[in-house]
């Protein structure tokens, strides 16, 4: 069995997450080749073939051309699997490749269980084992689910990838940098974060008070930021800040994968949630099963008396 691993390249750099594809292919036990639409100065460490197309010519985000390039590599390599990261690049490109090949796509794989692809469902409360019925299969893997062991090393054998077309229907205009952060959560020793479970904006000060009482900073989950309850500087997660405090207190946060990705490295995690099945309970050291707005003010008083 053979796999084609599609690397990611952004703002002139190879994304390190590309190595997770190698880790996954290793578990799958397949031979692999990589595809990079990037630059020769930034090729992955890899003992094998790397199909290289020039991002200077085909763009960093040009889905029509990238699809054509991947299909060209598929024609040359004849893989059983075409594997992407489940990322803003991968979930945008993978279905285009799958549709062109009429291949089954299995999205956001979190594990291989007895050779079957396992994906999550319903906010990670259920899992599904999914199989493809097509000759080739397109896979996307969850970012961070397949860890890279050690420093990647290798001598890639470069194969040039070229196509005739140089224009696509989506014209990329450029990047907009993330807003500057006025709070640096990455240095905080204690973070107390508010999630949708706090109910309303008026309750934010209650969570902030606990953060102060514990000598920490206020964090927040994405829905709370999008609702305008807390500014984006406080957002923890894959589109916010990635933190590793000594103590992380999640208040009314169910624990979407994007949030967990930003805080699972905390030394000690306390979750306060009335839903015992919330996915945050999977990684919490302590789950306090309680109504956030009843428990937090009482606990804050308790901490203050210390």
């Amino acid at each position, binding site marked *: 069995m053979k796999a084609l691993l599609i690397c990611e390249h952004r703002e002139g750099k190879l994304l390190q997450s590309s190595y997770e594809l190698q880790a996954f292919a290793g578990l799958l036990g397949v031979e692999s080749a990589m595809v990079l639409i990037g630059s020769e100065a930034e090729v992955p460490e890899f003992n094998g073939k790397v199909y290289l197309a020039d991002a200077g010519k085909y763009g960093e985000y040009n889905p029509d051309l990238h699809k054509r390039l991947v299909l060209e590599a598929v024609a040359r390599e004849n893989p059983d699997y075409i594997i992407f990261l489940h990322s803003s690049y991968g979930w945008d490109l993978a279905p285009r490749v799958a549709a062109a090949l*009429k291949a089954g796509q299995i999205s956001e794989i979190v594990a291989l269980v007895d050779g079957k692809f396992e994906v*999550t469902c319903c906010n990670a*409360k259920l899992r599904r084992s999914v199989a493809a019925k097509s000759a080739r299969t397109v896979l996307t893997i969850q970012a961070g689910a397949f860890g890279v062991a050690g420093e990647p090393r290798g001598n890639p054998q470069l194969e040039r990838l070229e196509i005739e077309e140089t224009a696509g229907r989506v*014209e990329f205009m450029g990047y907009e940098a993330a807003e500057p952060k006025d709070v640096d959560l990455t240095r905080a020793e204690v973070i107390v974060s508010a999630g949708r479970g706090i109910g309303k904006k008026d309750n934010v000060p209650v969570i902030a008070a606990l953060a102060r009482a514990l000598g920490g900073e206020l964090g927040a989950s994405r829905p709370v930021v999008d609702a305008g309850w807390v500014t984006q500087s406080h957002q923890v997660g894959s589109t916010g800040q990635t933190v590793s405090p000594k103590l992380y207190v999640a208040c009314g946060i169910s624990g979407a994968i994007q949030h967990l990705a930003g805080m699972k490295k905390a030394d000690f995690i306390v979750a306060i949630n009335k839903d015992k099945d919330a996915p945050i309970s999977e990684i919490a050291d302590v789950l306090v099963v309680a109504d956030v707005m009843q428990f937090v003010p*009482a*606990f804050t008083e308790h901490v203050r008396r210390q």
Partner: protein
Amino acid sequence: MKILVCIKQVPDMESRFKPNSEGTWYDETDLAFRMNEYDEYAVEQAVQLKEQLGGEPEITVLSIGPDRVGEAIKKALAMGGDRGVHIQDSRYYQKDPWQIAATIASYAREQRFDLIFTGMQSQDRGSAQVGVTLAELLGFACATTLVGFAYDSGAITVKRELEGGSKGVARLNLPAVVTCQMGLNIPRYPTLPNIMKAKKKEFRTVPVTELLQEAAVTTTEKMYPPAKKGAGLILEGETADLSDRLLAILKERTAVFR
């Protein structure tokens, strides 16, 4: 301009889930259903565009599923959609994303839409495939994960959300499919008069068998609850007692009070 918004009705994610008797989907008994959150951003963006263009565009709202999905369509009509299409399929959960996209494409092809909005993924299955696959089947331009949208004379400028908080800006000509991410807008609540008006709007039902010709390319073999890691301690009880116990644990296990 003709706009299509594709929505899905999903269970409230706060619910407790268990597999059904076949063990290939969740048991729907006792679940409360609502519009998929990402699709609410799609409906809102379509309605905002209609308002921007002085009410000229016609917005069709489409959903696939059993009878209950009519409620989600009616909510979208109350938010400002013009007509509803319910593709009836009581076995919707046995269709894979390829078949769902093919069903919508088969409906949309005849209707000649200019712009299609949908959510970036569903909250239950979350494959993030249907919008993009639909675009490919129709030969439309497509951009995913929108947190910004602007329309100007036949072209749209979008902001895509990227990892780490940065954004990618792109321009597309119509016809196009766009998939909407949280943060794109704040969906409106339907007002009572608009809920009443929605009841009088055109509402068609089409059996899925009239549209779907494609076989599945993937299959769910099994659905099951995740193995509990069970590493964490669960505290339950009265607030005062919980406070004491949590404080004692923090003193013992963390350096916060040292």
